[in-house]
């Protein structure tokens, strides 16, 4: 067992690195920032950021869509080279028993094809997780769907998958929002330079959609609604997480 002193060193090192990263990012950042980046950690690691979660009926009867966006704000110039993080476990979690604990998960991971730079997506699920809560493992089963990103994969009657760049569907007058509630503004980018104290008490007319012209990396899953495991007429709770290696509990 590690002593408290030994265990504290990586934390102090991590804090020092994080502080350095903050300073470096503040100096070099040119990317616009948005409300999506809700902490410095995900702001500096945008591939770990979950921007939005959606759940809605598909265009075909009896099917549903679960979608997650990440990495916004991506400028069009940055989008052409955008990739998912191969070290991040992206998950969409489903509670169909009403206790706030995931009963089923979709686990989405990425890797590079041997011999080239093509990024591949692998989707496992729906499957009961090996571990629930905030420390998870990748289930040890073959992917239900896999293939290149930016491609429609899978079956239109089973699990269908798309992972790649899309226009960010969210819309908000973000600058005005941060002028009203400046506490929520990001740590980097032009919006970080808005006044620390409230500088507006109302929205404006016309409003300005800050996300017009901005892209995100999207993970879109379509499936028969039976895949959600809800009881007849029942509800499911849906949320998304990102996780990184680093905890042994």
């Amino acid at each position, binding site marked *: 067992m590690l002593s408290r002193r030994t265990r504290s060193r990586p934390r102090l090192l991590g804090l020092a*690195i994080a502080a*350095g990263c903050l300073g*470096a990012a503040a100096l070099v950042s040119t990317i616009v920032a948005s*409300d999506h980046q*809700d902490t410095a950690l*995900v702001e500096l*690691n*945008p*591939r*770990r950021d979950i*921007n939005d*979660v*959606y*759940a809605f009926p*598909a265009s075909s009867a009896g099917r*549903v869509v679960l979608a997650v966006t990440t990495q916004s704000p991506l400028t*069009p110039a940055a*989008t052409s080279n955008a*990739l998912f993080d191969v*070290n*991040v476990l992206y998950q969409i979690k489903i509670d169909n028993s009403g*206790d*706030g604990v995931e009963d089923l998960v979709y686990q989405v*991971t990425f890797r*590079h094809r041997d011999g080239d*730079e093509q990024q591949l997506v692998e989707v496992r699920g729906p499957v009961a997780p090996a571990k629930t*809560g*905030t*420390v998870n*493992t*990748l289930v040890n089963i073959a992917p239900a769907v896999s293939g290149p990103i930016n491609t429609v994969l899978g079956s239109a009657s089973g699990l269908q998958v798309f992972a790649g760049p*899309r226009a*960010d*569907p969210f*819309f*908000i007058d973000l600058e*005005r*929002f941060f002028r009203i509630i400046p*506490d*929520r503004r990001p740590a980097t980018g032009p919006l970080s330079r808005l006044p620390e104290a409230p500088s507006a008490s109302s*929205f*404006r007319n016309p*409003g*300005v*959609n800050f996300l017009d012209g*901005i892209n995100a990396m999207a993970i879109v899953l379509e499936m028969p609604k039976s895949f*959600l495991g*809800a009881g007849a*007429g029942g*509800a*499911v*709770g*849906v*949320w*998304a997480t990102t*996780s990184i*290696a*680093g*905890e*042994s509990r």
Partner: protein
Amino acid sequence: MSRSTSRVTLALIGAVLLAAACNDGAKIGGPDSPSLRVTPGTNYRQVEFLANPLVSEVTVFKQQHQAYNTSMPYASAQFIPVTQQFITGFGRPQALADLLSTVLYNGGHGDMLLFYPDRDPTTTGWLSWALQPGVGAGGRKLTDDVVDLGLTAIFSSFLNPTGALCQPFQLPLCTDNVNTTARAPAGTFPYLAGPF
């Protein structure tokens, strides 16, 4: 090597190490090492959590976002007092704060996007399960104006007239006057519009 040269060298090494540390997951372009990937048998620690829009990003103070991101629905009820404080901080009544936090935190089960997949698809929309009890499918569509709905729920007479600051979906605070997504979603898979 002179002392000043050593210092410069050390500074450069430090800068390179710092850049490497900062680069973890943050780079936009270029391939990652093919040897790195998510693997079975490894524990993965949650660093981000999102369900209902606006709950954590708006009603929870930013200094608590990291704690929220490492939470889970079943544990997110601990943030209900913060959400209520945000609402009452604008002079809105405690009864409204109680009602909204009950809806957003699903009666204590926690922050989840509640979705009834068997209900009429035309009733799908953020919080429609609460606004049309027994009918609304809930979930969240790509076109849902969650900002205006959230602002209206908190600041207008829509749910509680006491101390309302604006009419539903009207200025000064119940709309941001941005009502549509920049690119209309497609009607078929993958639904989200192509990138700019």
